[in-house]
């Protein structure tokens, strides 16, 4: 298919690879220009059972035809524009725990198999086609579906599915690599050669490594074929082609099932337990009574503030994120530990909580990446001013001591993130957990008292309510952002 130059995405649009069209944002609306040659295919797909049931169940993004006059300058010359529902907080695969990548892969394969039954196929298979609405994955790239050549017995997106889903899951499971390292900078995932280098001889011969890593690596060494190798090969009959593609998809599903991240048992410290797993179950300094006191304060603060959207910074296993979700809030829960973030996702998905867990360290937040740094916005650009309430419970001492973030700057960032309220826990230098991380640097924090903290906060926030937790050098605060603060 020839693409005319004017049909390509204009400069500075973060979506430009797909010749079928591009997505752009018009104020709060998400619009997609579809190039004329792809319109009949898209319209036909949107009429399929796969698309209708997917949209109804929320697994496929809602799409409606939009008028050119509504689409601003970018849509002015487009013949066909669709508007998508807006997913509340877009997050990228390198911010997901492995559990979410696994769920996104399962959704992709489900759609590939369902669409196959109706004569459609997925032309690409990347986790960037999936966003999460709370804990639920949503397939957002409707232009990935194309009418299949019935005689085509190859799934062209297989290689991409392996590189961006299966191999990163293997890297996480067998080598403990976080997805931020394998899906951030390399846009198109991991090559089999990379995992081959990491694996020893015995592992290279394990069945899963053999088919996804070692054989492709050895074949590539011998491969001298020209470009015709990569062109579509017609099978003898449509039935045969479909049987073959179904077999390929089933094989991907078998690999995926075997790579499902292991569930941790926090209390027993088994599975993939990390330092922060099961923190509130025995590693924290709270007695049950003190924890109840904190829960009551948080619940009352939430009832008072009535936020719709909450950012929980340093969420650990999401104890307070779930408390907020139970009160009807839509929560983004961030923590730097992929293991605890994964456990939040499991619970949120199982119990249908509106909680989106992300592996983000607020002291080193995800930068903007991709072409011209425009393809994927930084975490702060997405989060700034995006929440009615920001929770920072038992976390700021880590930011102050471990990361040496100045207190005033920490509060300035909190004021940028919240539209209204800040629910924060101040941990004084006398606190045993503070002393555990300060390790001989007490002098640096001698001036840090709760009075000084209150004075620093007063520059940007007004105090709504506060409470000291009984028997601890910890204070809880509900602040309201001053109007002029920024």
């Amino acid at each position: 298919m020839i693409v005319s130059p004017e049909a390509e995405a204009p400069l500075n649009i973060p979506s430009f690879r797909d010749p079928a069209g591009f997505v752009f944002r018009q104020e709060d609306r998400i619009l997609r220009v579809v190039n004329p040659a792809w319109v009949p295919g898209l319209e036909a797909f949107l009429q399929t059972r796969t698309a209708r049931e997917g949209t109804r169940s929320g697994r496929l993004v809602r799409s409606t035809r939009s008028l050119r006059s509504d689409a601003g300058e970018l849509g002015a010359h487009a013949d066909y524009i669709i508007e998508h529902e807006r997913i509340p907080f877009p997050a990228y695969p390198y911010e997901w725990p492995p559990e979410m990548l696994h769920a996104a892969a399962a959704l992709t394969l489900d759609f590939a198999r369902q669409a196959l039954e109706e004569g459609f196929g997925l032309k690409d298979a990347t986790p960037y086609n999936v966003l999460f609405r709370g804990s639920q994955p949503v397939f957002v790239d409707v232009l990935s579906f194309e009418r299949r050549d019935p005689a085509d017995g190859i799934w062209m997106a297989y290689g991409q599915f392996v590189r961006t889903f299966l191999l990163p899951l293997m890297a996480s499971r067998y080598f403990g690599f976080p997805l931020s390292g394998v899906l951030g900078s390399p846009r198109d995932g991991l090559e089999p050669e990379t995992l081959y280098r990491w694996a020893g001889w015995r592992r290279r011969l394990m069945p899963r490594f053999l088919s996804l890593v070692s054989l492709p690596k050895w074949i590539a060494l011998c491969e001298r074929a020209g470009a015709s190798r990569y062109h579509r090969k017609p099978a003898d009959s449509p039935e045969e082609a479909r049987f073959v593609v179904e077999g390929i998809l089933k094989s991907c599903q078998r690999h995926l099932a075997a790579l499902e991240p292991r569930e941790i048992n926090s209390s027993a410290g088994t599975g993939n337990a990390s330092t922060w797993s099961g923190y509130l179950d025995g590693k924290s300094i709270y007695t049950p009574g003190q924890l109840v006191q904190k829960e009551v304060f948080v619940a009352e603060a939430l009832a008072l503030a009535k936020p719709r959207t909450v950012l929980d910074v340093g969420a650990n296993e999401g104890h307070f994120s779930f408390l907020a979700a139970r009160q009807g809030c839509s929560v983004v829960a961030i923590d730097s530990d992929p293991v605890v973030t994964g456990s939040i996702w499991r619970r949120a998905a199982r119990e249908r909580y509106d909680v989106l867990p992300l592996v983000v360290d607020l002291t080193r937040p995800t930068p903007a990446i991709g072409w011209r740094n425009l393809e994927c916005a930084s975490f702060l650009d997405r989060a700034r001013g995006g929440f009615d309430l920001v929770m920072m419970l038992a976390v700021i001492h880590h930011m102050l001591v471990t990361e040496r973030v100045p207190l005033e700057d920490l509060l300035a960032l909190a004021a940028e993130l919240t539209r209204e309220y800040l629910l924060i826990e101040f941990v004084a230098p006398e606190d045993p957990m503070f002393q555990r991380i300060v390790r001989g640097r007490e002098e640096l924090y001698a001036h840090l008292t709760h009075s000084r903290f209150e004075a620093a906060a007063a520059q940007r926030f007004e105090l709504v309510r506060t409470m000291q937790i009984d028997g601890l050098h910890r204070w809880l605060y509900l602040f309201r952002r001053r109007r002029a603060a920024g």
Partner: protein
Amino acid sequence: MIKNTNGKSAFLILTKVLLLWLPLVLASPSKAFGYIDPGAGTFVYQTAYAMLLGGTFYLRRMLDRVWRKRK
């Protein structure tokens, strides 16, 4: 020798699979529509796996015919 409904031997059908279908898979170029990188070794691995599945497809069809005839 097993005979199918058309009277051809199983051996002949398998030969057809190997001689006609495999070269088709390996050597007939047509238009390339994809815009993503299909990979190198992974793509060839998939092609080989597809060949195996294609062979399975014909084998199953042949066995089905034999089974139906015996019934």
